C-alpha cells in the first residue's frame, strides 16, 4: 500500500521544480531555454499556492495563482519581444555572446 498523500508531498514537488528551474536559468546559454526555465519557476510557485489553498480550504491561493499565470504570460511576451529585438541586432540567441555592456 502506498503512503497517503499529504500537503508536504506537493510542497516537495514544488521545491524540486523550483530547483530544476533555477538550475536551467543559471546553466543554460540559450535565452529561449532560460525563459522556459523561468516558466518552470513560476509553475513551482503556482503548485505552492494551490496546495496552500487546499490546505486552508479557501480560495485565496487559487486567485493568486491566476495572477501568477497572468504575470507569466506578460513576462513571456515581453521576454520573447526582447529576444527578437536582440536577434535582429546581434544575430544570436546565446546569452554569453550578448556582451554589449561588457567593458
Amino acid at each position: 500500500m502506498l503512503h497517503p498523500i499529504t500537503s508536504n508531498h506537493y510542497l516537495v514537488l514544488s521545491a524540486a521544480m523550483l530547483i530544476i528551474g533555477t538550475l536551467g536559468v543559471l546553466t543554460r546559454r540559450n535565452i529561449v531555454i532560460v525563459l522556459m526555465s523561468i516558466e518552470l519557476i513560476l509553475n513551482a510557485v503556482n503548485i505552492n499556492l494551490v496546495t496552500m489553498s487546499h490546505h486552508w480550504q479557501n480560495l485565496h491561493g487559487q486567485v493568486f495563482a491566476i495572477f501568477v499565470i497572468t504575470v507569466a504570460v506578460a513576462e513571456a511576451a515581453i521576454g520573447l519581444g526582447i529576444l527578437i529585438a536582440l536577434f535582429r541586432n546581434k544575430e544570436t540567441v546565446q546569452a554569453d555572446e550578448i556582451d554589449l555592456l561588457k567593458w
Partner: protein
Amino acid sequence: MDAILFFLFAAIAVVSAINVVVQRHPISSALSLVGVMGSLAVLYLLLGAEFIAAAQMIVYAGAIMVLFVFVIMLLNAGAEKSPRKGWILTAVAMPLLVLFLGMVSYIIQRGFPNAPLVVFGQFTGGSPKDVGMALFTRYLLPFEITSVLILIAIIGAVVLARKEME
C-alpha cells in the same frame, strides 16, 4: 488511487522538467515543457482547483507554448553548441543539488509534522463560479490592475519586436 495518480504525474512533471533543462535543442525543451504543464494540470485537479487546471492547459500549454515554438522557428535557433564543462563540476554539483532538495524536504517535514491528507474531492471550492465570484468581488482592484499590466505588455511587445524605422 490518489497516491498512484500523484506519484505518476509528479514523476512525469519532474522528469519533463529535467528534460527541459538538459535538452540541447530548444524545440525538444518546448515539447518537454508541454509535458510539465499537462501533468501539473492533473495535479491541480487532484487538489480541487478545476479552474486553475483548465487555465493552465489553455494559457500555458496553448498560448505560451505556441508563442515559444513560434519564436524558436522564427529565429531558426539550432542546437546549442557549448564547450563541455569538466565532468568533475557536474559530478560534484548534482549530488549537492539532490542534497539541497533533501534538506528542503526535511525542513518542510519539520515545519508541518502532521500535514493534512490530500484526498480528491475534499475541497470543491475551485469551480469557475467560485473563482469568478472571488475575482470580481474581493479581488476586483488587483484584477483591474492586471488588465493594465496586460495592456502594457502588449504595447511593450509590439514596440520591442517592431522593425526600426529609418
